[in-house]
């Protein structure tokens, strides 16, 4: 064979491989086995108006079976929308995001998961580990130190946890409240006011936004991460794979006081104790109705979860009885444990979610940050099986709590009261004689310039709507969509703030909304707002 013929054949071989792989990828992506959704191309195609003449011709030639009709109707709807309102079907900006990394249970996940997208291979989980349990233990024994070291470094790069308290301000049980803002500003910006003077697109382009989401530090496993104080008291919840990433001083007090709407005269009915299965009867017998007592018992009864259970598919060294509602919602409040919101798949798309307080749930028309649950019974029912994964049921057992039981859990849930707010009158306005000037100015701002009241209104300071703040205007990331408004009544007791805890202090929360709502508040105004929220 002549040399040049050989070279031509070699070149043809290379070109054939490139074309073949490229063709295969086009065919493969978007199929059931692919993690690459066909979003970008599909939407672009759908948003492109069809040439009417071409459509008619195609319509004449094709047989009018139901599949063709269905496709045509869908495309027609999209194309009409695209022509009349192109913004409504804006193509997904695929180039800015990365596909979720391919990994399996236990493997480390990026801390900036909001920059990724993709679909899962399946919606259903499996109770099978990718290795023997002994190997699973050994793997995490090796991985955990490095992981936690990186987590600490990452959190230190995001926040300045100087643990400086606000002088004279305490949570309802007496724990000092931390001062902020503690989110670190980028080096190129010297003050939050300077940052607030920039437009969202400028902040995004220069990557300056200090309140990007927080991801679960190990999202391939995820599940509940308990605060150090809790784990000290409940070593059965010590995880083999990771620990809490927030310092205890920036978390709610443990154990928190518990207030009952039916016994306000008693104040903290627990007298500083953590309510457990061992002591609940002693504390509450004679104070609660039989239904409430049964509901409380159920709230205290552990049930197996995806990773806290008696099987090998677990993240505790020894088999676990599971987790009770009150393990995160200690004393009907929160201990600051976080998990992933059980509202989406793949697991890496799920948002990190802090435990919200159960105090004042009787006032809420909507529960859960993303799922818009409308009743406390339903809330109790679905929370029992937190990850909502039937793929796990054969291993750890089906849902045990039936409707008659969850009703009673709801009965107990509905008497968990807010902490006292002595400076508020019955209409939830400050009593001028009890409030100082800063707090009064804060109230004025709350109802005026700062626009807080537009979402935080009524007796619980919540509108019971979900709002899409479109925070992705400020950073490159996957949109998080609408999230439920959290009530502000008793808010000083439940740091950190926002659904994922990205605002460790009330000061950070004010800075966050000052940026996101483009309020241009002054430094004094922000302090006043914080002073006001400490009264709620």
């Amino acid at each position: 064979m002549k040399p040049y013929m050989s070279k031509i054949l070699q070149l043809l071989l290379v070109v054939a491989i490139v074309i073949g792989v490229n063709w295969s990828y086009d065919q493969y992506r978007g199929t059931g086995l692919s993690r690459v959704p066909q979003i970008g191309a599909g939407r672009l195609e759908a948003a492109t108006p069809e040439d009417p003449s071409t459509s008619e011709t195609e319509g004449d030639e094709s047989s009018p079976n139901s599949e063709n009709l269905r496709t045509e109707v869908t495309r027609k709807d999209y194309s009409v929308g695209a022509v009349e309102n192109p913004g409504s079907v804006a193509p997904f900006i695929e180039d800015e995001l990365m596909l979720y990394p391919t990994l399996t249970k236990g493997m480390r996940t990026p801390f900036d998961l909001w920059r990724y997208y993709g679909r899962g291979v399946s919606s259903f989980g499996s109770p099978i580990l990718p290795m023997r349990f002994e190997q699973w233990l050994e793997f995490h024994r090796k991985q955990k130190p490095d992981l936690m070291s990186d987590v600490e470094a990452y959190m230190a790069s995001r926040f300045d946890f100087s643990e400086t308290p606000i002088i004279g301000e305490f949570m309802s049980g007496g724990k000092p409240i931390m001062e902020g803002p503690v989110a670190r500003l980028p080096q190129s910006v010297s003050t939050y006011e300077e940052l607030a003077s920039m437009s969202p697109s400028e902040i995004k382009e220069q990557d300056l936004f200090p309140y990007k989401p927080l991801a679960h530090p190990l999202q391939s496993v995820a599940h509940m991460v308990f605060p150090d104080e809790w784990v000290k008291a409940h070593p059965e919840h010590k995880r083999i794979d990771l620990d809490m990433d927030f310092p205890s001083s920036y978390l709610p007090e443990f154990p928190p006081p518990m207030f009952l709407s039916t016994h306000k005269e008693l104040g903290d009915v627990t007298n500083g104790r953590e309510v457990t299965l061992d002591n609940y009867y002693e504390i509450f017998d004679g104070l609660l109705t039989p239904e409430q007592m049964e509901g409380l018992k159920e709230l205290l009864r552990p049930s197996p979860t995806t990773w806290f259970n008696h099987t090998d598919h677990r993240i505790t060294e020894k088999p676990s009885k599971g987790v009770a509602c009150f393990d995160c919602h200690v004393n009907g409040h929160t201990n600051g444990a976080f998990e992933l919101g059980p509202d989406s798949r793949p697991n890496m798309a799920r948002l990190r979610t802090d435990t919200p307080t159960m105090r004042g749930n009787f006032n809420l028309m909507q529960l859960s940050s993303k799922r818009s649950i409308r009743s406390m019974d339903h809330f109790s029912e679905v929370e029992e099986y937190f990850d909502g994964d039937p793929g796990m049921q054969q291993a750890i057992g089906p849902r045990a709590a039936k409707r008659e039981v969850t009703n009673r859990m709801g009965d107990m849930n509905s008497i968990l009261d807010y902490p006292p707010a002595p400076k508020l009158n019955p209409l939830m306005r400050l009593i001028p004689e009890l409030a100082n000037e800063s707090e009064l100015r804060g109230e004025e701002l709350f109802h005026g310039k700062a626009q807080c009241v537009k979402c935080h209104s009524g007796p619980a300071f919540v509108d019971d709507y979900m709002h899409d703040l479109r925070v992705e205007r400020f950073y490159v990331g996957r949109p998080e969509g609408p999230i439920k408004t959290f009530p502000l009544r008793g808010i000083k007791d439940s740091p950190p703030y926002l659904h994922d805890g990205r605002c460790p202090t009330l000061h950070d929360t004010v800075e966050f909304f000052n940026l996101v709502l483009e309020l241009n508040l002054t430094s004094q105004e922000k302090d006043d707002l914080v002073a006001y929220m400490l009264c709620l």
Partner: protein
Amino acid sequence: MEKKQTPNVASPTFLRYALGLVYFHFGILKFFPDLSPAEMLATQTVMSMTQHWMDASTALWCLAVLECAIGLGFIFNVLPRVTFVLFIGHMIGTFMPLFVLTEFTFKFAPFAPNVEGQYIFKNIVFLAAGWTVLLPNVFPRRVPRLVSTANTDESISKPANGAPMTDKRKVPSLRLQGHSLPV
């Protein structure tokens, strides 16, 4: 005087093409996220070795470039020394999961690999094949040389006294000299 024959031991062409094809094809796959079945093992290994300084997509892209470069080197038979260095580096990398992802490559270490572990162990065949193909071009002095013990080439084809070729005194014996290659 001993005359050396030309050390023209050609690389096994088919083996070279086979290596190039596999490297280039599997390398190209890595340019397309979620297409390569080795994606998880490869990216996790690189990320572990870089202390997670490198993210998965960057790791995958770097591997894709590396494997395609090696593949093209094999197919076009160009830059053998560069290809050799890249190849050896890559081969070392392919064995690293056995050490950094032990739990994911063994059923029971170190003698009971799982499917992934076997997949990696088999790379030793690749290593031998690549070594065989590339080394003659990289270290020509260490190429096996066929050396005749007879004085001239003519002595092989034309026996002086018309004796039959089976005469051991006249038939040159060939021996390999100065090499370490499996030929």
